[in-house]
């Protein structure tokens, strides 16, 4: 049994939700703001640390499946995730479904945590895995009440604290948390050095699709993926369609990219505020029009900034796997996986001036829930991007067809 002790979630506005702490015992928690994702290699000195609470931004996630994908999605860096699905941990954790090698999120808030998994693919129980990665989890919480509160108040700073921590102190700590705006979280989750991390071979996960994957060939596109905390799913989907994928760090130079001359550069998802990435934005401006570009999620936002657009923080963001977006060209609806707290202001991105030319930015997708700007393209520059996650993982695969016609594939590969 996981050592369980009473604990609570306290939000910056003082709203408190009680539960039972499990996952990592508090004495092994690190201080908020350190590179938690890479913490497994670092030992925590014994004894009670100075700061037993974990502070982060608190968001709710409405997916009924895919908790492991959420927990391993680097975009959740520095976020405490409130899972609205009441039972979490039923299917345990396995290596194949991890979106990153280690979890980056700050903590979990759940209604009911399953001690023992029951699924043939499970390799670890969720509580054991959380303990191993020193992620706290508050369970037995009225997560619906938390969600309703966040829905009205917007994403808030908060703290997961053991019951012994006085509430006043916890509140002070939660309010000391800097928040996500303006903070370079990408640095905390991106790969440490500029290396090709993925073998350039095609892998085939039979669970990913009904139909056989395309085989790589000499005509297979070479895709360079700028990894801002990329989910494994993106590279997996690219490879599945026969692409050869090379990952690079977000600090990569424009010269390097141009010299490498891939068929396309893809910008991955990642955590936090896109405005904190001026260097990458500059890099993109330098290669715009010279290399086909495609952005996903944070990549979409950064690309929008590079093109002169604006972004802003959303009230509570989109975190779920049931978000309908309208494909403006076809009038069809895609049910998508989404995870973002910032959005691109649609009006800010109407046209782009480049090298004396002006190019119209064509919106391609719009959220049917709240009208949010969800995608654009500039065919003349071979640039496109989407706010949602076409690779899904977790979530429905409706967006996967984007891989077939995204920059880099140039119509060589047919719809799967």
């Amino acid at each position, binding site marked *: 049994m996981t050592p369980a002790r009473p604990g609570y979630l306290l939000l910056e506005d003082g709203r408190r*939700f*009680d539960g039972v702490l499990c996952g990592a015992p508090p004495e092994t928690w690190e201080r908020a703001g350190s590179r938690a994702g890479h913490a497994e290699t670092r030992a925590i000195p014994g004894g009670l640390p100075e700061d037993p609470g974990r502070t982060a931004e608190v968001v*709710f996630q*409405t*997916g*009924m*499946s*895919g908790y*492991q*994908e959420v927990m391993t999605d680097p975009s959740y860096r520095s976020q405490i995730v409130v899972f*609205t*699905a*009441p*039972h979490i941990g*039923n*299917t345990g954790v*396995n290596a*194949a*479904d991890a979106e990153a090698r280690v979890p980056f999120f700050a903590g979990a808030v759940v*209604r*009911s945590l*399953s*001690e*023992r998994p*029951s*699924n*043939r*693919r499970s390799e670890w129980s969720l509580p054991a895995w959380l303990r191993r990665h020193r992620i706290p989890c508050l369970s*037995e919480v*009225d997560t*619906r*009440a938390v*969600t*309703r509160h966040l*829905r009205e108040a917007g994403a808030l700073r908060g703290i997961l604290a053991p019951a012994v921590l006085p509430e006043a102190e916890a509140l002070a700590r939660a309010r000391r948390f800097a928040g996500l705006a303006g903070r370079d979280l990408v640095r905390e989750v991106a790969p440490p050095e500029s290396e090709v991390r993925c073998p350039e071979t095609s892998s085939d*996960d039979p*669970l*990913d*699709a*009904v*139909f056989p994957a395309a085989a790589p060939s000499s005509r297979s596109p070479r895709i360079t993926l700028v990894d801002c905390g990329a989910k494994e799913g993106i590279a997996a989907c690219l490879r599945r369609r026969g692409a050869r994928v090379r990952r690079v760090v977000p600090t990569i130079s424009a010269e390097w990219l141009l010299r490498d001359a891939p068929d396309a550069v893809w910008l991955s998802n990642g955590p936090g505020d896109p405005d904190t990435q001026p260097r990458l934005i500059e890099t993109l401006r330098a290669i715009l029009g010279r290399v086909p570009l495609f952005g996903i999620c944070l990549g979409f936002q950064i690309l929008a900034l590079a093109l002169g657009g604006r972004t802003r923080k959303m009230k509570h963001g989109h975190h*779920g*796997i*049931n*978000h*309908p977006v*309208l494909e403006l060209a*076809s*009038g*069809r*609806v895609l*049910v998508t996986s989404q995870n973002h707290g910032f959005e691109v202001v649609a009006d800010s991105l109407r046209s782009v001036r480049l090298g004396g030319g002006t190019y119209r930015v064509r919106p391609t997708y719009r959220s*049917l*829930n709240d009208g949010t700007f969800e995608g654009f393209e500039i065919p003349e520059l071979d640039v496109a991007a989407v706010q949602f996650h076409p690779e*899904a*993982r*977790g*979530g*429905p*695969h409706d967006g996967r067809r984007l891989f077939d016609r995204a920059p880099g594939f140039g119509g060589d590969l047919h719809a799967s």
Partner: protein
Amino acid sequence: MPADRTLGTVLILGSGPIVIGQACEFDYSGTQACRALRRDGYRVVLVNSNPATIMTDPGVADRTYLEPITPAAVEAILVREQVDAVLPTLGGQTALNTAVALAESGALERHGVRLIGADLEAIRRAEDRDLFRETMARAGIPMPRSGFARSVAEAEALAGTVGYPVVLRPSFTLGGAGGGRAETPEALRGIVAEELRLSPSASVLVEEDLTGWKEIELEVMRDAKDNAVIVCGIENLDPMGVHTGDSITVAPIQTLTDRELQRLRDIALETLRAVGVATGGSNVQFAVNPDDGRIVVIEMNPRVSRSSALASKATGFPIAKIAARLAVGFTLDEIANDITRVTPACFEPSLDYVVVKIPRWTFEKFPHAEDTLGTRMKSVGEVMAIGRTFAEAFLKALASLEIDGLTERTVGHAPRHEGSDRTGGGAPPPGEDAVMDLVDLARPTWERPFQLLDALREGSAPEDLAAATGIDRWFLDRLGDVAAIEAEVAATLPDHLEAFRREEAAALLRRAKRAGLGDAHLAALIGRDEAAVRDLRRRLAVMPVFKAVDTCAAEFPAETPYFYSTYESEDEGEPLAGESVVVLGSGPNRIGQGIEFDYCCVAAAQEFRRRGRPVILINSNPETVSTDYDVSDRLYFEPLTREHVTNVLEKERPSGAVVQFGGQTPLKLAETMQEAGVPILGTSPAAIEEAENRERFRNLVVRLDLSQPRSLIAVEAGEVVRLASALGFPVLVRPSHVLGGRGMAIVQNNNELELLLKQGVEVSKESPVLLDAFLEDAVELDVDAVSDGTRVRVGAVLEHLEEAGVHSGDSCCMTPPYSVGADTVARIRDITANLARSLEVVGLLNVQFAVKGETIYILEANPRASRTVPFVCKATGLPLVHLAVGAMLGDAVEENDAEASARTGLICVKKPVLPFDRFPGEDTLLGPEMKSTGGVMGWGADFGEAFAKAETAAGTRLPDEGTVFLSVRDADKRAVVFLARRLRSLGFGLAATGGTARFLKLNGMDVEPVYKIGEGRPTAIDRIAEGKVQLVLNSPTGTRSQTDGREIRLAALSRGVPCVTTLAGMIAMVSGIEAHREGPPTVRALQDMLAGEAGTLPNGAPRSAVDASDSAGKPGGSTPARGAAVEETATAAPAARMRP
């Protein structure tokens, strides 16, 4: 894409009578569809033979045909109403099959009618197992190993290839009827022969046995633009091998990873595309091998189904309504989500709770039937419960079942199954072999949930139980949690009660309530009564909160108030404003309490709302219209128990409650209402008690100087025999306070009586046994009336076709009465009025009479809605329920002095539908024990026409030619001569055994003699089996011929040959056959029948009541924002095309 305006008139096919596998979920879906399409401006024509449905109320469709859902009747309606399109996907298998028949016969093409929702090719690809397999193979979608056989020999050969055991399934049947599993070639031969007969396409699928695999179902919506969403994923607790309809199911899916789920989703969408379901709701069923993850598609239904009703209620996503709108061309993104109203319907609902469905069986009605659950569905209803966790929802669902001894079973020591012994009881003897337990548990029965809890309490490991049952261990772990907290409660809570440690007690109690333990459950654990636990909870402030069902896991504010209770920190929503009225539903469908009561609840809700009284509805049945979120102002999906109802009452503080519409379920809660200080509207519970308590009622009868069959009450076993002799045989034996006639029997002599007592009839002061002198050959009549306490309006006097002694729910009945004289009817009306005044009935009253000679006997009076109320409403046009609500609110009831039905000039017949085909081995004789699952209505200018329609609607194949086999008791012989003559003159051949044959020959008729069993060949049974008998007329008598008769009846049943067992029935049947031979049926619209009566309806009640609920500012009443423009244009165009 906007709606298709080339269509003006759309015909919606209903599903006919309630049968096992096709219940009132299709009333819910059809009602939604009718209302949605009318709101979109279409003229809607509805065909359904089931009068107990809300959809057949005159205000729901523009034109309503209570006619048999047969190709002939529907074609006549297509022509008469100049229908442009048929929507067949909302009326279950019946509607789909009828549409296929109409398309294949060329009728649709002939009359220029389109099929919308699903085209013929798509239906064929989904329904014909062979075509389905081909389609799946072509699309690369995995299927079980199998093959397809058209003969027994082919099936045997295939089974050899696939490998035994094999599963056998016929094409085109309801609820898996006729399915079977064979382990040996011998078994296979028997089943296949049977299936080839049941399958309209005479084909059987021989399939790899997937028993033990996980069973998963996805509910899919797809529109004409190929947008598709999964509304809900449902996981079966019971693995493959138990029919989904008989399985405990859970939503959302709990034990699959996202990867696995998304693969199922991909396959489901691909399946829809491959089959070619253009629009609407479909479900795709999967089996997943838990060991290697292999996924196969089992089947898909290109229509709304029982599970889509469940999915709708589980998620708040109105599948049927949206399916109807998609069928006329709307797309998912154009339709607003009714619940959030700001987001579109094109999304996948997210649940932040767990839903558990548990089927409801009635094996006690069929003592000879096999109670192992298998591939043939046997349950007659279901309950759904919502909780924040699986365990909570599961225990709430158990609490919703309304079965005897529920608490005892839940708490433990459920009877163990040993062979066919159903009585058992008590804990197993200590030291009983644990392995035996597991073997026992491997056999799925309705008692398994209780047995699993017991096994866990006794220390069985969840993994062992999982291995034995195929139930995923995760669920068993959760039940293990329940067992653990039970132990903790039992061990420590009583101590807390003695030496009270407030905080610890509160914490433990809160944990127990969060785990889902009901007050009665806790009370049993700590040896107190339920009230004590409730009191304790109050003192410790362990009280429930209510959470909303909102489709979006709280991401958006919900507009639709649809709630469930749970134990959490935050309650949502203020009590309903205004003088609210609580309408208690009737819980799960069961034999004796079915859709008729839901009809009454919904009609009552409509009328209260029309009169400006907000309605709070509490019910646990996901199949019903009453649990649709826009029927009431607030819906509580809760068990109908004292605990849960009290919780709602305490939150809502309603101004009143009604208990007379939902059958026994709400009546039992009358006391709870009064305890909570909520006044009961209408007849007082005391008056209800006076009528239902036999002794008190007898006093009333004496006081009013009325007649009742002589009766005596026995309070101990010895007394029963003595009193029975005193009354004189035959005697009707019944325990007090029964529902649906359970445990009732007519005994002819002492031996039979003693046999009955040995079967476990309890006789005590608490449950006395009532003995009635049985009136042989009396005519039985039913009256439904409404009263304001002084004035009484008789709805209809119904004459039963079968003589007294057949349960009124199983009797065929008709109005106006046809054999009883006008003076008798007048006296019956007077007596009814007299009774209503004496009992101070405010609302509905049902009285049952028997007439023998000149004497009118009162059998019973029930001051509440009866099973026949909806039929009477349709047959007479009198909105009885609406009038009853009016009376409750102080309106004076307008008295009438004549039969309302007489004014339409039609004879209306109500015919029950019996489920014997599901329970092989069960005799088909009718008796005082009710066995029917539903009923149909037929009307006509004369009795023959009405009866023929009712029989046809009930699924009887009325023969036009062939041979009639007769075997009647001596008393019926004289009368049967005339029938035989009529049959001869109609061209039928006659066959008969010994006595009957001789008698007919003496009367100058050609009769083929056949042998009785054991006297030679061919026997009657041989003849039936050979298909050489088209009708059986068999009236039972004596022990010997009862056995012989039983064999004959079973043979007829298994060959689908109509079999009539009463003389009255035989006469009716022959009249029906005569009418049937006259050619295509005359079809009549309800609206035309009522046209002359419209002025007498209070403000056209039913019609405007529907409108009122539509426009009461409820979601569903209007579609805001995006949808608005579409809706507005929707109303105008087709109106111009409407024809009178």
